[in-house]
């Protein structure tokens, strides 16, 4: 994420936050980080799957009846493949 300069007033205000507010912020930032991670995975999956599934001439804005299921399967198989890697690594570790 881009670096954002914080308003010095805000920084000053941060020092006087209550314990509860700090806790709230912590939880919020953690959740936002997770969201950003998921979104970035969606971006890279869309990139990969678009390349694989949208191969014919682009002549409509909507996904056609081949493209839509292809995109879904692409995500599913990617997850499967990912699982294969994890399983294999686990197996290697236990050997």
């Amino acid at each position, binding site marked *: 994420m881009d670096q954002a300069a914080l308003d010095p007033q805000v920084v000053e205000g941060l020092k006087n*936050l209550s314990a509860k507010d700090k806790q709230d912020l912590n939880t919020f930032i953690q959740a936002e980080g997770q969201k950003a991670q998921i979104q970035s995975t969606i971006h890279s999956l869309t990139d990969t799957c678009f390349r694989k599934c949208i191969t014919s001439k682009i*002549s409509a804005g909507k996904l056609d009846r081949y493209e839509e299921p292809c995109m879904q399967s692409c995500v599913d198989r990617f997850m499967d493949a990912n699982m294969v890697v994890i399983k294999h690594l686990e197996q290697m570790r236990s050997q």
Partner: protein
Amino acid sequence: MSDPKQAIMDQVRQQAALSNARALIEKVNEHCFERCVPKPGSSLSSAETTCYTYCMEKYMASWNTVSRQYLGHVQQGVQGQAAFGAF
């Protein structure tokens, strides 16, 4: 002065939305330029512009489909094993 907690949260949300939009625009342009403008001429033809419009819509539709599908997996993963989305 405004609530500092709220200010931080707003700024984080805004930054997240911005970087998400930026990533989408970058990807759309990358794919659609490749697909719609194979041989760049002296200007964008109307056919190329039309293709771009369709391509953009299609890419965003793809993004939504992938998002739905992937979130389904993530939610299943959270129920089974925690944080599978974090690979």
